[in-house]
């Protein structure tokens, strides 16, 4: 897997995690992802929508049918909602990542810098 692919996977994971909390619109997702990653991951607008497009196409998320209370809403914005498949995928991905981490950590420990 290429570096770019890995990054893309990580970003997709962060978006799924963000939507697992609540339905959000694009800007909100970006802000949430930045906070979750401690400022390390700042998604570009285009990248964000590309990822959202891919997640939509694979059925992991969908456009939200319910919208927040009108006074909180900006009607031009589109809200996204995680699907059941999305939650399952997120959970599976997290389990796999944990296994990967437990396998990788000893290697790092044996060769301290």
């Amino acid at each position, binding site marked *: 897997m290429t570096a770019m692919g890995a990054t893309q996977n990580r970003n997709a994971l962060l978006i799924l995690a963000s939507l697992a909390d609540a339905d959000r619109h*694009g800007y909100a997702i*970006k802000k949430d992802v930045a906070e979750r990653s401690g400022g390390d991951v700042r998604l*570009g607008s285009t990248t964000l929508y590309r990822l959202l497009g891919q997640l939509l196409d694979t059925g992991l998320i969908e456009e939200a049918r319910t919208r927040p209370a009108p006074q909180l809403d900006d009607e031009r914005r*589109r809200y996204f909602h995680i699907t059941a498949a999305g939650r399952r995928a997120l959970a599976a991905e997290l389990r796999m990542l944990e296994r990967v981490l437990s396998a990788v950590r000893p290697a790092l420990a044996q060769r301290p810098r």
Partner: protein
Amino acid sequence: MSRAPFTLAVLRLILRLYPARFRARFANDVIASVRGELERAAPAGRAAVARVSASALLDALRGVIPEHQARRAPVRVGGGIGDDVRYAVRSLRQSPTFTMVALSVLALGIAAATTIFSVVDAVVLRGLPFHEHDRIAAVLEHNLQRPQSVGSTLPQNYLDWRERQQSFAHLAALNRITFYARNDGGGLDTLRGLRVTRDFFDVLRVQPAIGRALAAADEAPGAPRRAILSHTFWLQRFGGADIAGRTIELNRERWEIAGVMPRGFSYPVGSAQPTEIFAPLQFSAAERRRGGSRSYQYSVIGRLKGGVSLAQAEDEMKRVATAVDAANPGFNSLNPGGNVRVLALHELLIGRVRTWMLMLLGAVALLLAIACANVANLMLARASVRGREMGLRAALGASRWRLTRGLLVEGLILALAAASIGVLLSVWGVRLFKAWMPDGIPRVADIAIDLRVLAATIAAAVITGIAFGIVPALQGARPDLVASLHAGGRSATAGTGTRRLRGALVVIEVALAVVLIVGASLFTASFVKVARIDPGFDYRGILALNVGVPIAAAQYKEALQRGRPYVERMMAAVRAVPEVGPVEAVSGGLPLSGNRVTKQVTLPGRPAPAGDDAEMDTRVVTPGYLQLLGIRLIRGRYLSEGDRAGGPQVVLLNETAARKYWPGLDPIGQRIQLESHERTVVGIVGDIRHNGPEIPPAQEAYVPLAQEAILYATLVMRPPKAPSRVLPAVKAAIWTVNREQVLYTDRVTLDGYMEGLIAQRRFNMALLALFGVLGLVISAVGIYGVMAYLVSQRTREIGVRMALGASRGAVVRMVLTNSALLVAIGLALGCAAAWYTSSVARAFLFELDARDPRAFAASIAVLAAAALLATAIPARRAAGVDPMIALRAD
């Protein structure tokens, strides 16, 4: 803040590169999102806005390829050559004007190059179609004092050489002969014959396809007559039927047909008038005996033995010939001393046209180079316009090699498409060329567009494609990303590098065009000079037909007695033809025909004239002949009906003869002896250029037909209407006297002979002029392109200048100065190149220095005028720039 709309504009452009589906779904979201980021960054200052802009744009750029890959969309920056080809074809189709111009320029260049190459290849470059053809050589006998001697030899010499020499495995003698064969109408047709010794077939290593070759027995005098037919003649005359037991009537005798040569065999190789009948050479007893007859009409060719070089063979043949000559002192009066040369047959055949042909090839190569430079220039212009596209493709991760390859593929596609059109055009060009080419070019029948020529064309196309593809490729594959994005929607890589490169290409085009136009001027000036020469008589509208008594060697003396009455009967018959005008006759050489008869000159009471003065061209003419041709009378009188056979023997001389033999004296009344006839000079007439406009007149005598025995004569008439209108009636009148009179009708007018003499000059002039004009037009297009580009590049600058008070005149001057600089450099380089290369043309010029300053001046003037014209349009456009619009444009 001012950056925001700009950033969003660029973002929109980038988003256009995304698949349509993505744009439809998210373009507005992305733009809204970026706009939000910019607005939030604004309070933090310009630097923050710039950072956000840059990262947003880069982010958008980075996604283009992966997004396409995810969608399996056709546009990719990766991929194989197939993608390059598809991409190039689409890109060419998207700019039809560029493609049309580039294709036409290149197709013209390639068509011209293919046509000329097919000619030069067939005539010069290709080997002879014989097994180990480079082992075949000709043995030529020369007189060192007469460089124009043709190298033919005596039969006695050939027989002795063949006997003594060791260098050649086979040595053959041959000579051309005309056979008369009866046609269906009862008249006679002429056939091209070649008499050959039996060695001929061994020298060439060609045997008849049907029947057998000649044998030693066939060469014995009185042997049964056997002929071998050429394949073409066999098909024409016998329809390819079985030859067993067939005969043909040649010169009133029955010949057995012994064989048929293979298809494709022609001798001389590729001649437009190939031999139709090969007959055994039977040397008569007189031709075998020293002290017998001397007929210098035999060519000798041989096949070298293995391991013997041309130089060795020449050394040996010189020794042999010198020994043979020394053993028979005085016999070989024409070429004494045994000076022989041994020359490869290929060289003998094409040696005299090689330089000329290679010059034509060089000229067309220049034209092709101009075409290439022009297309490279066009591609550079296009690359500039496409700089943004290149920038994007580079930003999308396309490597420099990818971009270069793409441009190269585009160049190659263009070149190959042009080559296809060019080859089609050249098929027509070759046909035109063969029809227009002067007579006498060897191997002309072999000229064709064949696989060899096609291969060369394709190779040339690939090379040219790479040549003009690589320049913009190197330039275009190095796009400056920031510059290309900043330049907005218009032209991008406006770097000075490109401008300089385009300037250099224009300089090259101009320089090459100068060389072509200098050549064209030289050839045109030569032709005009030749055409302006007064030949001393009026050849226009003269119809000339040869008539004569049939000769057989045994009846020579008897035939001489019959000749004059025969010609007089013919004249009487033709005079009866309506609208034919006066009919006169000349024997011993029709002007411009290349025929001449010379007679020994003796002046009574004076030592025999030596050298060139020893012989004089002598024409036997009817009294009205000189007036009919408009030859001026200088002194004395013309010939008249009163100059009869039994009367005083008279002669007219031309001015050259009068000056030569009686310098400072009055020649009228002087006595002169021509061979055995002593005559009185009764008149002096003007010189004529008997051998063509380029050859100065020599001494010449005119004697009355009534006082000379002849075998043949040329009937000369000047019909008031076009010669072709009366020709059928004239022929019919001749045939009423003798149905078997053979009339050569390929040339029947003096205009036709004149045309033949100046054909090569006319051809060279036309061809070089054509190349010159094409080169000129293409270069002018190049200059226009660069200047127009320059003006469009500098529209803003021009606007600023005008806003600051520059006049329109100043702006026009600026553009003109720019153009003048390029053109001046091109002219200087071109003149220098022409100065050094024009010596190639020297041999083909008539009384003209290859470095004639007038030719150079004319080329400079023509090119400068064309350049001015090509610059005028962009200059006008520059002058028409509205400062306000130019400044607002961004």
